[in-house]
């Protein structure tokens, strides 16, 4: 047991940053971003949690200086809000499964293509990715509405006898949401897939494995890290979906994002809005860890994905 002087404590705290020479300079270069993340990300979230623990107020957004967990109890006990949370997760799971399956297929097709076809396939995901959510959502209205293109076409051909209400409806929400997250999922998988060697697949096929089998047994294990990232991104974004349910959904399509907006901007009930946000963040965090662990089982090392 040696007595620690303040100096040696400081040294110890500093030592992780000091392992190599020049790391002070490195710290200096990183400091703008570190400061930014602290001030615009960490501190605001601390404040969010603090407000969620305040009393609600009639005249103000929240009662300053009070402390209570009443809003959490209210959110967790309200059947209405529980329904909203369940809806969000259900949408998240359905959209994620669809997006990741389709994205895996499309990433594989892009990986196998070359030249102009490959560029075209990549372009078809990068362009929607760089297009605003507003357009990505709104674009489906003229296409899927009861008097829209798809219905008119199917009616004219005779495949439908009456128009189908896809928009506004839950099916429309799912289509819109899959369309929104698909590019992110596809590129996450594609960037891992492009490091896989095609010779491996050829070898498996030479040894008699069919297309499906060579994909499942050779390619799939290699791209689990990409699939994990794709799943996590799609899930996080679909649980938090805002624009697709708002524009393509019916009145019953109500995820938590819409509720938070209403509580925040219309009812000015900040404790409820922030408590619901915090609860959703915790639930999403737990789910993401779960996804990470479960998918990690299949593919081993996920940590070098991103």
């Amino acid at each position: 047991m040696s007595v620690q002087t303040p100096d040696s404590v400081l040294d110890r705290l500093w030592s992780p940053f000091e392992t190599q020479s020049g790391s002070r300079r490195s710290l200096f270069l990183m400091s703008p971003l570190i400061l930014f993340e602290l001030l615009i990300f960490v501190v605001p979230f601390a404040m969010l949690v603090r407000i969620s623990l305040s009393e609600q107020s009639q005249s103000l957004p929240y009662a300053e200086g009070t402390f209570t967990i009443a809003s959490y109890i209210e959110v967790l006990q309200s059947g209405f809000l529980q329904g909203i949370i369940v809806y969000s997760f259900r949408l998240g799971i359905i959209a994620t499964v669809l997006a990741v399956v389709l994205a895996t297929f499309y990433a594989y097709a892009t990986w196998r293509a070359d030249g102009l076809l490959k560029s075209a396939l990549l372009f078809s995901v990068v362009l929607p990715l760089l297009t605003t959510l507003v357009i990505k959502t709104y674009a489906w209205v003229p296409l899927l509405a009861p008097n829209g293109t798809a219905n008119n076409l199917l009616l004219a051909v005779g495949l439908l006898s009456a128009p189908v209400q896809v928009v506004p409806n839950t099916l429309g929400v799912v289509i819109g949401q899959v369309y929104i997250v698909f590019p992110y999922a596809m590129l996450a998988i594609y960037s891992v897939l492009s490091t896989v060697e095609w010779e491996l697949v050829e070898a498996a096929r030479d040894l008699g494995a069919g297309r499906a089998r060579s994909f499942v047994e050779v390619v799939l294990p290699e791209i689990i890290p990409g699939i994990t990232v794709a799943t996590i991104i799609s899930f996080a974004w679909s649980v938090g979906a805002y624009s697709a349910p708002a524009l393509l959904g019916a009145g019953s399509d109500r995820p938590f994002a819409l509720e938070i907006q209403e509580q925040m901007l219309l009812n000015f009930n900040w404790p409820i809005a922030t408590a619901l946000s915090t609860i959703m963040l915790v639930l999403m965090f737990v789910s993401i860890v779960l996804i990470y662990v479960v998918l990690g089982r299949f593919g081993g090392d996920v940590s070098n994905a991103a």
Partner: protein
Amino acid sequence: MRLESDRLGIAAFRLGYVAIFVAMLLPLFIVIATSFSASGNLQFPPEGFSLRWYRAFFADIQWLRAFDNSFIVGIGTTVVATFMGITAAFGLEARNSRLGDLLTPVVILPLLIPPVILGVTLLVYFSALGLQSSYLGIVLAHSLWATPLVFFVMQSVFQRFDWELRDAGMDLGANPISVFVYVILPNVKNGIVVSALLAFIISLQEFVMALFLSNFQTQTIPVLAWNSLRQSLTPTVSVVSTFLVLISVAGLAAAALAVNLDFVAKRLS
């Protein structure tokens, strides 16, 4: 027999990716087509061809102001995000520290948080600071999303840079700043152009956070488009959408020229 099923499999495979290809681009195509509609209905195929909605757009002061707002916020975000992303990636590359291992997940995290929650959080915070509905507030919010992209693009650019060149410059007696300007910069400038373009596009297209953090005076194009969509579906929104899609196509083309599409695509996820 085996050959027959093989051929069927290949045909199904092609059909599959062609279908997805069409599904990805068709909505954007329809939006652009409806912007030329002669009627007030949002229909595809459009009824007749006219530029009346384009004229309506350029006659509307509200849309023009939103355009200005989008550019102010976009340029601001590009400057802030590019500066922070490049310095941090450079600092990280120079020495792989444990701090960097800690910084990376923190930088990614905002991308995984639903934008509505980010919007609420920053609205609460900016209200306390008196920054609500200000350009600065929206720029900082957008930087939360744009900086990680710049950071990762620049990280992989710096990784490919031959650091012995820098050491050679140092050995020859150049100071660190001129080494950066004359040795490092020429080698990484394409990466900087690409990350700046991406930062700008991300800011230009983001709308949920902007919806929370802007007001009538400072609303950006996607926010105004959203608000007018919720009132009525008019082809004017298609006109605006066409402009936004064209800007992305132009930015993407520039980025693809500077590096290549494959590189850009892999950095976007």
